[in-house]
């Protein structure tokens, strides 16, 4: 597929109000369950029909992980894992898929993509990456990043990340995302050239900094509160779950000892021997069954982790609103004070303390010309300020509107996903119980033959 020409004209706004409507602006195809929002496609539809290619369904998969060695920025040897991303287009008619793109990326590139999206789409709850380092690990699992199970789970997490973006009505159209899937070399440079790092609001990173906002949108305040609590509760849940897994592992494994001792005991028994021996075998089966059970449960833990990290993304959107509101209020405050200054100069009354006022008293009043000049400057500033305030207001309202739309979308997604996660967890528990019943029933039968 030919490389789409870069768009150097892309304006960086704190909140793009419309999807990027460039013909080469990204995938735009309906992907997965979440079809691109109907309203969003307006500008894109025309361009899509231009090129039939975009109408095809696209499948994305992170199909492999490979250990690599290379040199890092400091020219030191390092080992890292690379992931193979394959994109396939699916013909509507016969459902067959054709591999269209395939390239290797490492975790840091995924991070770069996400950081870029965070800056360019601050009103969107940006899907999170799987964890960088293994956390909430129960003892049997390795916390080592190179451990094959961890790598495998991360591969799945990265695939999930890409699928989330691809199924998001707005994010899926992003060109950089498109290039991430299609342009192997130079992609990093392309991203950096957008200059997004410079535009990033560093205040967003300062999580603990508080800004005194007088009139925040209450919904966002509540939402931020919610996201904090959600993070806290899911962390707690994951920690305890890991401990539960540990203990459960212990219970099952100790039963394996029965296998050995029953076997030894059966050696000295005449009639009881067979029953004991075969029961012992079932105890071994029981003990070894826990490995698969807990491996399946890790999938549930991963689902929870995704939403733990999503909570952070949610918080970031609220934070952005807070900062915008803060800037707005600061600007309004500044404007108000300038207006007042202007008024005072014009009327000659000094209601507020000012340095000028003091110096005037000390050194005598300024000349009318000087005063006129100052008033003029102030009036210009006031004008500018009013314009800015107006556009900031507009921006703010647009942000709130768009952000809230995405938040509603996110809430639905979250409720759906978590419900499914709970169902699959319950199904896992049911399967575990049934296995337990089976094993003990078999053992009981052996005992009955003693």
């Amino acid at each position, binding site marked *: 597929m030919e490389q789409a020409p870069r768009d150097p004209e892309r304006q960086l706004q704190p909140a793009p109000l419309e999807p990027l409507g460039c013909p080469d602006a990204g995938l735009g195809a309906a992907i997965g369950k979440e079809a691109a929002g109907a309203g969003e496609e307006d500008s894109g539809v025309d361009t899509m029909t231009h090129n039939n290619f975009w109408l095809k369904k696209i499948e994305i998969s992170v199909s492999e992980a490979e250990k690599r060695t290379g040199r890092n920025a400091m020219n030191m040897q390092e080992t890292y894992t690379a992931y193979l991303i394959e994109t396939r287009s699916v013909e509507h008619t016969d459902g067959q898929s054709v591999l269209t793109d395939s390239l290797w990326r490492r975790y840091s590139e995924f991070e770069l993509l996400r950081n870029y999206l965070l800056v360019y789409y601050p009103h969107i709850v940006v899907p999170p990456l799987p964890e960088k380092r293994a956390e909430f690990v129960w003892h049997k699992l390795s916390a080592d990043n190179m451990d094959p199970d961890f790598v495998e789970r991360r591969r799945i997490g990265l695939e999930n990340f890409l699928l989330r973006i691809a199924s998001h009505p707005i994010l899926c159209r992003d060109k950089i995302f498109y290039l991430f899937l299609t342009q192997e070399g130079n992609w990093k440079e392309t991203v950096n050239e957008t200059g997004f790092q410079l535009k990033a609001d560093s205040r967003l990173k300062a999580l603990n900094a508080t800004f005194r906002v007088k009139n925040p949108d209450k919904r966002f305040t509540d939402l931020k509160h919610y996201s904090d609590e959600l993070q806290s509760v899911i962390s707690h849940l994951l920690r305890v779950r890991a401990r539960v897994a540990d203990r459960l592992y212990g*219970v099952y494994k100790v039963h394996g000892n029965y296998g050995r001792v029953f076997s030894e005991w059966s050696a000295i028994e005449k009639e009881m021997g067979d029953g004991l021996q075969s029961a012992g075998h079932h105890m071994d089966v029981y003990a070894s069954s826990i490995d698969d059970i807990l491996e399946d449960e890790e999938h549930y833990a991963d689902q929870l982790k995704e939403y733990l990290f999503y909570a952070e993304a949610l918080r970031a959107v609220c934070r952005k609103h807070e900062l915008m509101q803060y800037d707005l209020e600061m600007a309004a405050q500044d404007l108000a004070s300038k207006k007042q200054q202007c008024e005072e100069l014009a009327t000659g009354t000094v209601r507020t303390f000012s340095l000028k006022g003091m110096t005037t008293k000390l050194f005598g009043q300024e000349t009318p010309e000087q005063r006129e000049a100052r008033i003029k400057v102030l009036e210009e500033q006031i004008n500018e300020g009013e314009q800015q305030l107006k556009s900031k207001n507009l921006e703010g309202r647009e942000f709130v509107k768009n952000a809230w739309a995405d938040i509603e979308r996110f809430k639905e997604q979250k409720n759906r996903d*978590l*419900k499914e996660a709970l169902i699959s967890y319950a199904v896992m528990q049911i399967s575990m119980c049934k296995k337990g019943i089976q094993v*003990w029933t078999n053992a009981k039968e052996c005992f009955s033959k003693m």
Partner: protein
Amino acid sequence: MAGGPPKALPSTGPHSLRDMPHPLAGSSSEEAVGGDSTPSPDLLMARSFGDKDLILPNGGTPAGTSSPASSSSLLNRLQLDDDIDGETRDLFVIVDDPKKHVCTMETYITYRITTKSTRVEFDLPEYSVRRRYQDFDWLRSKLEESQPTHLIPPLPEKFVVKGVVDRFSEEFVETRRKALDKFLKRITDHPVLSFNEHFNVFLTAKDLNAYKKQGIALLTRMGESVKHVTGGYKLRTRPLEFAAIGDYLDTFALKLGTIDRIAQRIIKEEIEYLVELREYGPVYSTWSALEGELAEPLEGVSACIGNCSTALEELTDDMTEDFLPVLREYILYSDSMKSVLKKRDQVQAEYEAKLEAVALRKEDRPKVPADVEKCQDRMECFNADLKADMERWQNNKRQDFRQLLMGMADKNIQYYEKCLMAWESIIPLLQEKQEAK
């Protein structure tokens, strides 16, 4: 006594009690009581009836009480072994109703012992007395003393080993009650021990202490005889069959010890798992309070985990109360059995030594003196009793362990079934609104 019936003396198959619940009762024994576990009739007959100057194996009877050798009761006893379902069982004992007694000097628990019997040895058809642990302890020593050639069932441990347990707690008392009940039932099932006079008094006397003070030594002939065996003789080699029993008991006790440790470890791990579960469930509740649509599903999961926690607690309690004590009892049992084996060795040693002494005397007409004959007789009786008891013990052990292990499997099955039910019941709750959408 003349014309002994061809049938063998009753061996204690497990007769299911009709009237009284047996705490470890299983289904009725599938094997015929008379089967391969019955000791050879001849041997037993010789023991019980062959001796002309017999004092009955159940111990000396004070004047006035009819002897079990009288034909009616004998017939009764003999009919027992043919009955698989215990229809003609004539002695039932049950231990229940523990009560705490607070006195100035001490606090202790007594248990009610209810006896129902048609045996002539009992004046009344039914008795109800109260006994405390030390009374059981007394009974056991008396049985050991008076029936040294038999295997006496074990008592639950006198002192609580793991010091933190409260000896007046409901669980402890109940566990002990079950063990004491089992103890008496084992004696009841024994064809010789159940006729022991001390046992009778234990079951019937209003004032046991008075009887204890009388210090009546009601030794059987064997008891008397064995009591006087000098310990000084060393047995050269244990006969093969008894050596085999000894080896078996050694390994058996070892394996049981291992199983006990494993079971304890499992319980410990399960309790630690339970502790975590008790923290895990409520976190879902906390989460539920934050949510709207997810509130009910999350609360449901929380409740579910709570139910599983309760089920687990029941499992660990059951295992602690029902499983571990029985294991320990059997370890104690095998220990006391090894002592009996040693005593047997002493009897044989004495006999062999005396025999040798005679042989060395080089008399013209080597005549086996009476006391050597007595030794031989003693040894042969001991061997017979012991062998018979061993077979009986093996059989009961098999029943007991089958029951015990099946019980363990059952408890685990029940635990998983409870959990299964809990999780299955919330699936519809979790799926509900999704379909309603």
